[in-house]
């Protein structure tokens, strides 16, 4: 089960993920990110406090947007991942390509730094 909510304010778009991302619902995640990119938002944050599991298909979705983010100059930050889920990013090496931070404040701080 995956629940995706998207909120947008002046500074950034926040995509909140709740539940599990697997092969069957990774399409929904893809649609959510695509929507955020299309909306022209330059700062996209993903909140993963309630993300319990992410499969390789879900990781593939993040990976597929890395180039787009670079081209469109979008800062993409994931925050609030549990240790277990964070470890999945780490093992794959995705933490070297995506900025992972602990909480929203840190994420926002990163945005303002840039």
């Amino acid at each position: 089960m995956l629940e995706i909510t998207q909120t947008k304010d002046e500074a950034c778009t926040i995509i909140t993920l709740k539940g599990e991302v697997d092969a069957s619902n990774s399409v929904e995640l893809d649609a959510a990110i695509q929507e955020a990119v299309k909306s022209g938002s330059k700062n996209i944050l993903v909140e993963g406090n309630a993300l319990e599991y992410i499969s390789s298909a879900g990781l593939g979705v993040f990976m597929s947007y890395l180039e787009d983010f670079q081209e469109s100059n979008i800062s993409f930050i994931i925050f609030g991942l549990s240790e277990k889920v964070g470890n999945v990013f780490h093992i794959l090496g995705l933490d070297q390509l995506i900025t992972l931070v602990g909480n929203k404040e840190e994420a926002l701080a990163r945005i303002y730094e840039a």
Partner: protein
Amino acid sequence: MFKFPNIHIGKITIILAIFSWICLLLVDSLRIFGEVNQLDVGISPQLTNILEIIFFIIVYVFFNDNINKKQNNRFLNLIWRAASTGLVASAFFVASYLFREVLMADTKLAEDEQLKNLSYHISFALTSIFLISTSLLWKNLILYQRTKNVVQQWQAFEIILLMSMFFVLFIEGGETRFGLVAGILFIVIYSIILSVNLKWIPYLTIREKWKSLLFLFIIIFSAVGLFFQLADLQPTQDINLVSNLFLMGLFAFVIIYSLSSFLVTLFNLPTSSVFEQKLVEAISFQKLSQSIKPGEDEERVLDILMDSCMSAAYVDAAWMELHLPDDEIKVAHQRFISDEERGNLRKTLLNTDPFGDFLNTNSPSNIEYIYGKLNYEAFASIVIFQLKVHKKRIGNIFLIKEVKEGFNKEMIDIISTFVGQACISVENYRLLNEALRNERYKEELEIAKKVQQSLLPSHLHHNDCFEIHGFSAAADEVGGDYYETYAYNNHQFAMIIGDVSGKGTSAAFNMSQMKGVFHSLVQINLSPKEFLVKANKALSNCLEKKSFITTTYYILDTKAKTIQFARAGHCPTLYFNQKKGGAEFLKITGMGLGMVRNDQYEEFLEEGYIRYEPGDILLMYTDGIIEAKNEIGEEFGYERLKSTLDGCSRNSAENIKEEIIDTVYSFVGKDTLPDDDYSLMVVKFKG
């Protein structure tokens, strides 16, 4: 073997009938001759009676055989046969009457006893033939849709008739008249009882009913006419072929059954159109309920539905619209209405309550149909039915009449049944097609499974310095896990374990690409890091955007007792160190193949190096094992894997493999199927 000649009952009985009739004629002629000349010719009147009985029986046998043989036993045909025989018999009467009374009126010939006798006998024969054949034809009608009871009644009647033939032999003189009357009365009552069996009448169409009325009238007229005329023709008092119970009984039976058929048919006329309508409806229903055969399409069922609805309600105009995927409407069938009229009428309907609401949605409505007044040119009433297939509304059917309140409850009920049945037929057809398609997919997957299983190695390369065992199970028919080995020489080996992102068929395709890459690159003897860099480059061009592959590549040298490895985002290898007495995860940085598709990839890789000792264990596995969940959603995890290996480190490689698989499966629970692919490969070094 003795072979029976093919006896033709029909021909034999004709000959016998004619022969017996001639005998009868001769005997009676002799008797008349004796009477006229006051001579005793020595022939008993009983001989006449016996010959008559024989004649009756033979004629009965002939017609019984003849009628059963005829294939075309349509009711109207049967009645026509009876009527035509009656006509022939009557015609002979008229002819002989004219001959006697007009042509020979004043000649002596008119009074000639022998000529009178001949004409009497011919009339008698024709009358008998008419009565017996008609009775047997009536038998077919009575026994239509027979029940056991009716069959028994008829058999009893036949026995009564048979007995009545012999009645004349036993009763003599004055008692005859009383006995005859009593016998006839009995047969009359029995005939009335039999005359209730008229089940064939409703099955005649109106046209046939009119014809059968005419034929029945001819039969009644002929029978009554023959009855009275035959008595008049009697040549002398002594020779009486008519006053016997059998013939009288037949007269009574034929007249009574014809009369009751005549009256019932007559009174059936006004309601017969209703019956015909019901019959048509039943046939339509049957057509609709026959499921569509593969190869035919739904159009045919909808076409039958259209016709059935129209005839069920005597509709003046109708059309059927089908909803296409992108909110378009296609008019599938249109009857007695022009495109323009239909378009305008539909527009009017959209703006009229309650039709507008019913038509405006494409989703299934709770209301099955909608019926109401209409005020559009000549049309005065309309009913619209929705066509619902598989909980989806596929279209509407519009039925229009020029009379006000033209649809009654019965019509709407029957149309509703038609619509329901047609929708079920269409639904069944679609389900069947879907099932066939699924069956095909399953077969394809089965083939894919076999192909993929052949991609995993059946034999893992090794030498005497180490044992190696592998295992793989896919969640779906095909999976994305991969492992393989390669021997450079007798002491240098390459090993790889990998996992393709995603599951199922797409993962399986990428896995086979990985196998191709492995076999190409392993030839050029690269270091693990170089191997991964090259593999990344190769796969970057093949993998789709969202896919990546995680893998760890090892080079094992049993002479130098070293393992060199690099990790491309794959789960860290678990290494059991005999000296330390515990297992550890070999955490080196790495990056999945296909994640960075440029030259920078190399920067994300590290290379590991181990010098192994006897008793050390190298455990390679895929994330399916780590992420395997038990009933309460808990993951198997890295710690359980480590402690499992610690617990069985003294065992052989094969035992370790079994132990880990058993532990994972019992953790997940026996009843749950794996929801990810599990693979592992165990290497145990020997002394």
